[in-house]
């Protein structure tokens, strides 16, 4: 094949792959995102991403026999949250939320990648906000990451990043979080998580934290048996179970021997 023949083909391929990269420039993607927004997000986040912070019942229909009310959604304003937050909530499956008032949890992503890109482009177009971060975990330091994770994250997510519990909310395990999602979550502070600005955790420190979280996905278990990496309670349970069984076995043996002697 000559270069002349490859040329147009490559161009065609580029055109096929390019749209996402060119999205912010082109209005088509934003328009597509706006349509999707109307379909999935509008009921809670309001028209043009203004947010709805006052809950109220809206009556639909008219006349004495057709009095129906619907619960209008509640949701924060999306102006100025940028592509960062939109990308986080959509790629984790946190949004669209099933119903208002529950904690967003990682779930199956129902939108296609193309749809997510359009929605992200639309939300980003609502106001000037942070772009999708590009973390470089390979540049981070694992030991510094562990220290930072201990300081800022382990209180809720546990040192092994297996998630935990806070009254009224469940800090999720981080085993499925991608580096980009971790970087986004630290800046956004989803649900009741604190948000950390670049002043509190710099991008370089964030790289280290992500490197550490990646490490916890397959930690080096010196003891050999991780028991879910969830700390002393299950370990204690196992110890009791094995220890008690052994003690009972010893008692039974002694009892049998006494019976034989007597």
């Amino acid at each position, binding site marked *: 094949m000559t270069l002349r023949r490859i040329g147009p083909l490559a161009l065609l391929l580029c055109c096929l792959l390019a749209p996402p990269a060119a999205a912010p420039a082109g209005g088509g993607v934003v328009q597509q995102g706006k349509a999707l927004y109307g379909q999935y997000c509008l009921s809670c986040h309001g028209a043009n991403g203004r947010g709805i*912070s006052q809950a109220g019942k809206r009556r639909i229909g008219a006349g004495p026999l057709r009095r129906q009310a619907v619960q209008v959604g509640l949701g924060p304003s999306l102006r100025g949250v940028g592509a960062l937050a939109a990308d986080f909530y959509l790629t984790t499956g946190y949004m669209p939320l099933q119903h208002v008032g529950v904690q967003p949890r990682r779930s199956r992503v129902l939108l296609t990648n193309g749809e997510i890109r359009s929605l992200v482009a639309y939300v980003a177009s609502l106001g000037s906000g942070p772009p999708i971060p590009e973390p470089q975990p390979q540049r981070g330091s694992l030991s510094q990451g562990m220290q930072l994770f201990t300081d800022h994250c382990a209180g809720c997510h546990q040192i092994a990043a297996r998630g935990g*519990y806070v009254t009224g909310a469940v800090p999720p395990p981080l085993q499925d979080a991608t580096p980009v999602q971790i970087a986004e979550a630290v800046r956004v502070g989803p649900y009741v998580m604190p948000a*950390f600005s670049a002043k509190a955790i710099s991008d370089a420190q964030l790289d280290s934290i992500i490197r550490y979280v990646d490490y916890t996905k397959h930690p080096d278990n010196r003891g050999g048996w991780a028991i879910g990496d969830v700390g002393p309670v299950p370990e204690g349970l196992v110890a009791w179970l094995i220890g008690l069984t052994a003690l009972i076995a010893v008692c039974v043996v002694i009892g049998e021997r006494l019976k034989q002697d007597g």
Partner: protein
Amino acid sequence: MARARDVVLSALLLFVGRPRPPRVRRGDYERIIPERPPDAGGELLAIALFAASALCAIAFVAFYALDRLPNQTQLLGGSLGLSFCFLAAGLIVTGRRVIVTEQLEHDYPAEEHREDQETVARIVEESGDRVTRRRFFKLALFGAGGALGVALITPAASLGPFLDVDPFYATPWRRGRRLVDESGRPYRADDIEVADFYTAFPEGADEENIASPVVLVRLAKDQLALPAALARYPADGIVGYSKICTHAGCALSLYRTPLFSPVEPGPALVCPCHYSTFNVADGGTVEFGPAGRKLPMLPLAIDRHGYLRAAGNFDEPVGPSWWGVRDRKPTS
């Protein structure tokens, strides 16, 4: 003191002054258990073992009292365990070599209770025949038991302070003291951002002091709902609370801060030990969990250069609660 004296006196009366059981006189009856020669060696061994048990139990009390020992836990466990082992060994030696052991089977007629009692008393009396140093032996046995008993109730001394409580009210905070981070850098008011939380210490004071660490958070003005007495405690929306949980003294390391207040739980500090949850918007009241009193709040001020300073002392004593914790206010 008067009450303690009464208790000691009545205990003495109870043990010393109680009536003796009637002794069965030797020689009146034929022996039930055949006579055996005394085993002086076994008896001494048992006494020695009981003495060792008592020593170990006393050592436990000593280790407990001498705080600050290296490996204290191991010493405590070792001494108590050894005490039990010696006691068990002493009892085994007593059973095997000192007491006459003879299994006798009798079908006692149910009506003849009186005679049974006498027989039992005689058996007990005669089975102790081999013991020559009777009083010494008793002393050793009760010494071991008593010392072990004292060792077992010693940890109750840690249940609560009641004599010397002044140090618990003392805090290193006083008006004008700057707040610094763990590396000693003073905090400026604009370092404190919304939705994040910071640990601060008093400038130049001991960080290890339980009253030193403070959590700083910034709340929006409309989020704050402080009672009138605490209305002047925040500085520009920044509130400071003791980092030490009022339940068991753990460090509050979890901060819950809603991204969208209308549908999410309110801002609160949560203790990782037992999930005591303190509302930071209304002065640190307990929202959930075993903590029995509100989180102590530190009044804050911002000086001319923008640095955060304490505007006084905490409104409540810091740290886990004890009897009488509410009696006084903290002192500088």
